[in-house]
């Protein structure tokens, strides 16, 4: 039984298989509303290099859907194909029932897009950026002027309306880009790495704004390599690596399936981590040795730590934390998300 939504997963096991299928059937089952985005066997090649390798997913209206993966996993390429600005090499893609390659303008009229790199017009003032962008949708100035003020308020940028884009902080530019993407009241918002490069406070402000959009019923499609971001914002995630989907499900379900409840992180110093790892065998469900630390997966971190001590090992530092999507990714690929 090969589940429809998951491809080429080397660590596939029967337990994960059944529960994943359950998740996917659930999503399909709840689709009283039609899917706003459907991708089937979507592929993108640049010469010999396959950036996106035969991936499939369906996104129902109102869902918050995340593509999680490291840099170069093919997330942005997928986003650009959905946004109708990149031609696919194979498979089918439908946005609001339209093929973006045939109906580029129509598809893009439905979307709001927040690209990975801000491409605001730095020669125009903050408010003018919104108005100019609205003009591309054929919208009249009589609508755009009040709309721009409203969006600036939403983005908490009202005071900067007359400022130059250049004078905004990174977080403010990002919020302005999001405000810009909302000028046509899109039902679907594509966000490519929305908070990469922002400081923690700026990220939280941004997440709050995105959460409001989600509450208002906007379908969010976002890529990220931050697991906390995926956990905060996404109803459902696909984990992608090297252009393929590795796993799919809600953040909680993924953690349940691929990790333990808690993780004990112990450090013995760079030289010793690898040698000590052998002596840790048998503690917890499994261990993972990284260059700077050893991870012990267990449902009870305190007990695992006691056991480490009982074996006469004294780590320089130790930390017990809850499992995260980072651990899921490590389990699936053997690599870290952020390298």
């Amino acid at each position, binding site marked *: 039984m090969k589940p429809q939504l998951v491809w080429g997963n080397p660590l596939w096991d029967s337990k994960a298989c059944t529960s994943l299928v359950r998740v996917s059937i659930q999503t399909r089952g709840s689709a009283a509303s039609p899917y706003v985005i459907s991708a089937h066997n979507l592929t993108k090649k640049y010469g010999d290099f396959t950036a996106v390798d035969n991936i499939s997913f369906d996104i129902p209206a109102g869902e918050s859907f995340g593509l999680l993966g490291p840099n170069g996993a093919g997330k942005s390429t997928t986003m650009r194909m959905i946004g109708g600005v990149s031609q696919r090499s194979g498979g089918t893609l439908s946005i609001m029932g339209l093929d973006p390659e045939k109906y580029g*303008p129509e598809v893009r009229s439905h979307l709001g897009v927040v*690209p990975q790199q801000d*491409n*605001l017009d730095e020669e125009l003032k903050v408010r003018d950026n919104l108005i100019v962008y609205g003009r*591309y949708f054929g919208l009249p100035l009589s609508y755009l002027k009040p709309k721009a003020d409203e969006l600036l308020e939403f983005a908490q940028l009202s005071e900067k309306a007359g400022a130059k884009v250049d004078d905004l902080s990174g977080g403010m530019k990002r919020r302005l880009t999001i405000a810009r*993407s909302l000028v*046509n009241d899109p039902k679907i918002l594509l966000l490519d790495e929305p908070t990469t490069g922002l400081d923690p406070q700026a990220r939280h402000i941004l997440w709050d704004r995105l959460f409001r959009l989600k509450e208002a019923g906007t379908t969010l499609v976002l890529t990220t390599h931050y697991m906390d971001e995926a956990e905060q914002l996404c109803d459902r995630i696909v984990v992608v690596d090297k252009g393929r989907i590795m796993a799919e499900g809600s953040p909680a379900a993924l953690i349940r399936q691929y990790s333990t409840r808690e993780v004990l992180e112990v450090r013995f110093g760079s030289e010793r981590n690898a040698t000590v790892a052998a002596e840790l065998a048998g503690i917890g469900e499994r261990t993972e040795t990284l260059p700077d630390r050893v991870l012990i997966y267990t449902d009870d971190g305190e007990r695992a730590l006691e056991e480490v001590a009982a074996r006469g090992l004294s780590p320089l530092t130790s930390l017990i934390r809850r499992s995260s999507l980072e651990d899921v990714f490590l389990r699936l690929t053997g690599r870290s998300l952020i390298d």
Partner: protein
Amino acid sequence: MTSAPVPLTPAQSAAKARRLGSWYFAEHTLRVMRTYAASVLMYSVGTPLAYLFAMGVGLAALIDANGAGAFGGVDYLTFLAPALVASAAMMSATGEFMFPIMDGFKWRRTFFGPHASPLAPAQIAQGHIIGVTIRILVPTAIYFAIVVLFGAAPGPWAWVSIFTATLCALSFGLPLMAYVSTLTKDSGQFAAVQRFIVTPLFLFSGTFFPLATLPWFLQWIGWLSPLWHATELGRVLSYGYAEPAWLGAVHVLYMLATAVAGAVLSRRIFTRRMGA
């Protein structure tokens, strides 16, 4: 979010963008230019004044005293003015078809914002061309007006040279735009274009002296140069410089053909580069 609903459905937006997208982007280009309109205006008044006084009055004093008669019966200022108008148009086109293109694709990636909107890449290319054409027409008209004030445009059809000068700007600028839109980084190409192409064209296109004055092995520069074609046309229009009709047709056709080729290529390159 409690405001008026969007007055257009996505389908209506898309239909409008398909029809008018180029003009929407032209509007953008012009809005950006408005932010430096003061310096454009300053240049469009200051440059003609400086050149007309220096070359047309100062240098003319030297030339009319020594080499009068070389200019078909008109004084040096009248001879020179159409060339200056056309070369000013060509030079502002050079800037506007290089830096904003690089900015759009590379530096600040300003083309990729509209690219995510209903606009198509070819419309972005066209919109930029429309915007720059308007941007060049204005200072060219001002330049011409100042030439008139200097009394250096005697003929009744001289004003048409505003348009031939703008055509010259496009004839040079659009192939340049196509070239720049293939660049992925500036490792000195812009400076090279300025100094190895624009400056020689300015100096060897029959601008300051009739092309025939140059040795024969340099005259081909003039034939290839949009600036020479525009300058000759300008002289015909401005003071009735005698030239066979077929040559006039060659001037217009050459400039039109290069401009159209540049525009078509630019559209293709934009589409290819943004759709990959």
